[in-house]
């Protein structure tokens, strides 16, 4: 399967997914850490992809939605943004609503 198809399948198959450096338990980057913590605080299960363990995704994810940096958070198949946007939505209480609606 083409890598963009593989990424697309992960995004479509999971209502909430974060592509991050490291894992939620062992993040390897402060921005990934914060974004994963915000998702955890929403209280729903979410999928994660450790881009450091998947060089093909690491190389190609930026061109999937034309977003140059990590982490990337997708809810309901749509790019929410990176760490700063995720944190801002979390602090406004919007992220929790988005995640809950996606998981239902």
């Amino acid at each position, binding site marked *: 399967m083409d890598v963009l198809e593989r990424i697309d399948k992960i995004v479509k198959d999971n209502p909430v997914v974060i592509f991050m*450096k490291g894992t939620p338990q062992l993040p390897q980057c*402060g921005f990934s850490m914060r974004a994963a913590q915000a998702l955890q605080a929403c209280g729903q299960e979410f999928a994660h992809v450790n881009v450091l363990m998947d060089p093909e995704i690491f190389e190609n994810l930026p061109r999937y939605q034309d977003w140059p940096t990590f982490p990337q958070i997708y809810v309901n198949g749509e790019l929410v943004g*990176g760490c*700063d946007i995720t944190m801002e939505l979390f602090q406004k209480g919007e992220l929790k609503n988005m995640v809950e609606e996606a998981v239902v």
Partner: protein
Amino acid sequence: MTVQSVIEQKLAAGIHAKHMDVVNESSNHNVPPGSESHFKVVLVSEDFADKKLLQRHRMINEILADELKDKIHALAIHTYTESEWKDANGDAPMSPPCQGGDGSLSP
């Protein structure tokens, strides 16, 4: 020219900002002293009015696309309209602490 100056010039040319702050945060990270790899930009502009966060960040990512390709490893972006900036009391969030990076440099 330093990466910082390039970022400042490109943003100043691309966004009509009332306030702009470009901070080199590289020294907080797992990179050699004097690096220009991790930056935070704070922008206050009416160009952001009626634009979602995703669109605002895309504007900045596009302006700095060349730098993001190889020079900049991390870019924290905080965007405000003038009224949002007033609500935030003129204070953008702190960037997170480093968690080791991509492992390309030993600690």
